[in-house]
């Protein structure tokens, strides 16, 4: 056992995790004059050094394939490419997880200041009224202990601060917000809009966390389309640059990076008194004493921390009297179809970078349709344009078109920029067979017991994928295009994303009114432990087709303000 060192100082609030939830908490509490200590398992971030924005592939000898040609041999040392922001891994050396037999689950983890917000897609969609009351809506899932109207003012605050593009559309499935001006649609996107019109599928300006106008001292976007690489001007939102760094300047925030939380400590009255963590650099255990803890380590990592915090008072893990910690795990339903559009061949070349990702998208459009064979719905993310050529960009066309020399060059030139993709992002209904728990025998390199995942899609999600596939084919064909993706296989399980693959894990500490069936109250406070909050996507009841980040920020914001009020009243 490493020697346990006890720090004598009692900190006010300790926040664990620096992504969307932790970053928001740090920002809001320091803005209110409260002292905060932030624990991040990864290193500090230096955008000037760590972001590879604007780099050309030839600026590194290996052009992005990996210094030892890893990508050619299927070893993805850079999960989304060498040039993307330092963003984490599907498999972290020394920090494994396990899956139960028959469960296909991937777990993406970021260990860096700002977490996954450094590289995420930045699609920012409000949940709708029925998303907060899904059980009332169609009898499936469980309701949040709050309604849309209670979240709406916090969405306003979040959007106002983050800066999100968009337009007012008046659609129930896509509530309007406080928007910055949208970005004009690219050529292929204009064709998609025409196809949508023909098929009665709305294609509206996308809602993205990029600044089409300067806000809160952050520069306006310079339209290089490389948001995923990390944005040095912070024109694309990240919690590291927009929230944590400014909070550090207040003098109220202490940042401890390289700190892997092991366990939350409680006193005899059942209140949290501190956090035991591993100082990774020295491999020593340390304890930080505090008055309250806000956990925002990501839905599964937060559940793991609670489940590993066992004591006489909490033999099943901290705040887990309901047995719901780790349960109700959901991810987004993913399925994509790509095609090539002959109308785009030979088009006059131009710069189509824009903001990183799509300029238009399709919100769910069949909310009122009866007799569907799946509940709720999905949105469509649209891809295409003249991307910067990368390693592998033309492997598809090279494989399809035999030959060499001028012919090969002509084939590649003709193909470039003609590809479009439609990716469905749909709602999964929580089920009893999808959850995470502590693996009984395995620990990671820090001696912390790891998670074991159980995963099963239901017929709902599989039927949704069939609907997606048919819709996307129809869109490509309406554009006069040719589908290049394979047909939907007879076994739809081969066409749906793996659990966790879309990186929208949610629901492992759901909030509710009843302490017997939920972990947190409506303020993200543990029913059983008032000075413990969880503010990532763990509190979510369900996982609507709106992606998780904007709602994490809005919910963390309202929870932090409530926590500050409770502190003021002396309740925490």
């Amino acid at each position, binding site marked *: 056992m490493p020697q346990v060192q006890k720090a004598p100082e009692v900190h006010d609030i300790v926040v664990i995790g620096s992504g969307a939830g932790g970053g928001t908490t740090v920002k809001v509490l320091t803005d209110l004059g409260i002292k905060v200590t932030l624990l991040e398992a990864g290193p500090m971030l230096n955008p000037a050094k760590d972001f590879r*924005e*604007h780099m*050309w*592939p*030839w*600026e590194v*000898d*290996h*052009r*992005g*394939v990996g210094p030892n*040609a890893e990508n*050619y*041999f299927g070893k993805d040392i850079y999960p989304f490419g060498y040039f993307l922001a330092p963003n984490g891994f599907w498999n972290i050396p020394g920090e494994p997880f396990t899956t139960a037999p028959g469960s296909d689950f991937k777990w993406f983890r970021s260990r860096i200041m700002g977490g996954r917000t450094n590289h995420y897609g930045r699609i920012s969609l409000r949940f709708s009224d029925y998303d907060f009351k899904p059980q009332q809506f169609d009898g499936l899932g469980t309701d949040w202990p709050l309604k849309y109207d209670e979240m709406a003012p916090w969405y306003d605050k979040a959007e106002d601060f983050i800066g999100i593009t968009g337009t007012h559309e008046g659609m129930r499935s896509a509530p309007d917000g406080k928007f910055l001006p949208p970005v004009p649609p690219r*050529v292929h996107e*204009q*064709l998609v809009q*025409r196809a949508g019109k*023909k098929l009665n599928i709305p294609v509206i300006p996308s809602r993205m966390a990029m600044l089409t106008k300067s806000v809160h001292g952050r*520069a*306006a976007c*310079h*339209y*290089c*389309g490389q948001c995923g690489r990390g944005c040095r001007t912070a024109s694309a939102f990240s919690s590291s640059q927009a929230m944590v760094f400014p909070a550090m300047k207040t003098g109220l925030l202490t940042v401890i990076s390289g700190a892997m939380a092991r366990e939350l400590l409680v006193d005899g009255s059942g209140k949290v008194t501190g956090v035991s963590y591993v100082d990774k650099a020295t491999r020593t255990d340390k304890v930080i004493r505090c008055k309250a803890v806000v956990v925002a380590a990501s839905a599964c990592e937060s559940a793991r921390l609670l489940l590993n915090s066992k004591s006489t008072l909490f033999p099943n893990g901290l705040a887990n009297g309901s047995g719901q910690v780790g349960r109700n795990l959901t991810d987004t339903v993913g399925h994509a179809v790509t095609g090539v*559009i*002959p*109308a*785009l*061949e*030979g*088009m*006059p*070349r*131009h*710069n189509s*970078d*824009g903001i990183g990702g799509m300029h238009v998208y399709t919100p769910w459009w069949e909310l009122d349709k009866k007799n569907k064979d799946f509940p709720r719905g999905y949105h469509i993310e649209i891809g295409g344009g*003249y*991307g*910067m*050529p990368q*390693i*592998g*960009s*033309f*492997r598809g066309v*090279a494989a399809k078109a*035999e*030959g*060499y*020399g*001028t012919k*090969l*060059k002509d084939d*590649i*030139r003709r193909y*470039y920029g003609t590809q479009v993709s439609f990716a469905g992002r749909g709602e999964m209904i929580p089920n009893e067979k999808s959850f995470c728990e502590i693996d009984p025998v395995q620990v990671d390199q820090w001696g912390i017991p790891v998670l074991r995942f159980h995963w099963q899609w239901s017929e709902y999600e599989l039927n949704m994928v069939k609907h997606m596939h048919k819709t996307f084919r129809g869109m490509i064909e*309406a*554009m006069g295009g040719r589908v290049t993706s394979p047909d939907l296989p007879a076994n739809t399980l081969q066409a749906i994303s793996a659990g966790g693959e879309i990186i929208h894990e949610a629901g492992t500490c759901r909030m509710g009114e009843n302490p017997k069936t939920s972990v947190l109250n409506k303020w993200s406070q543990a029913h059983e432990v008032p000075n413990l909050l969880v503010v990532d996507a763990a509190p979510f009841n369900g996982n609507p087709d709106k992606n998780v980040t904007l709602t994490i920020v809005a919910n963390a914001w309202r929870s932090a303000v409530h926590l500050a009020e409770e502190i003021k009243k002396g309740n925490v």
Partner: protein
Amino acid sequence: MEDPSRRQLFQIIGSSLIVSPAFAQHVHSEIAAVKSLSGGATYVPKKFNRHNFLLLRKLGEIIIPGSTESGAAEYIDFLASHNDELAAIFNGGFGWLDNYMQKTYGADFLAASEAQRTEVVDKLAYTKNSVPAVAAGVPFWTWTRNMVVDAYYTSPVGVKDIGFMGNGAMSSFSVPKEAVDYALKRSPFANEG
């Protein structure tokens, strides 16, 4: 390693200013003024012997004319010097090809005539021409072709060839009308106005 335009761009990006389209255009034309990644005749291969390196360059030129300037052979040599499996694929391929050429034409690949080289490459490149005698060379051909394509289009000369015009910085985003008109005219929506 950075050329002045790159440094300038980073200075501007770093100081959070909005960059004019004119500057973006300037950056783009700087890039268009192609920088060769080829180490030229003086390049000392890190992994391959001199003969095989020149053979690789020759193959590269056949696959993508202009790939010498893109540093395709240097790219493959660099990676082979860091990956034994890759080195074995290429060294094995060079050995097979020269041996096949010797047996068939009495000269190795570089010494053979243009017509002889074309004859063997056509057998490697097209399934319809494939014969059992060259089957052992096809995986090597595919590796070379893929990596030469990768190297070429990730080089300044390849980026210019394909017409990628992005990676700049501008104060607003717009889509040229002639591009929209071009696509609409060729699409099923041509008559919608």
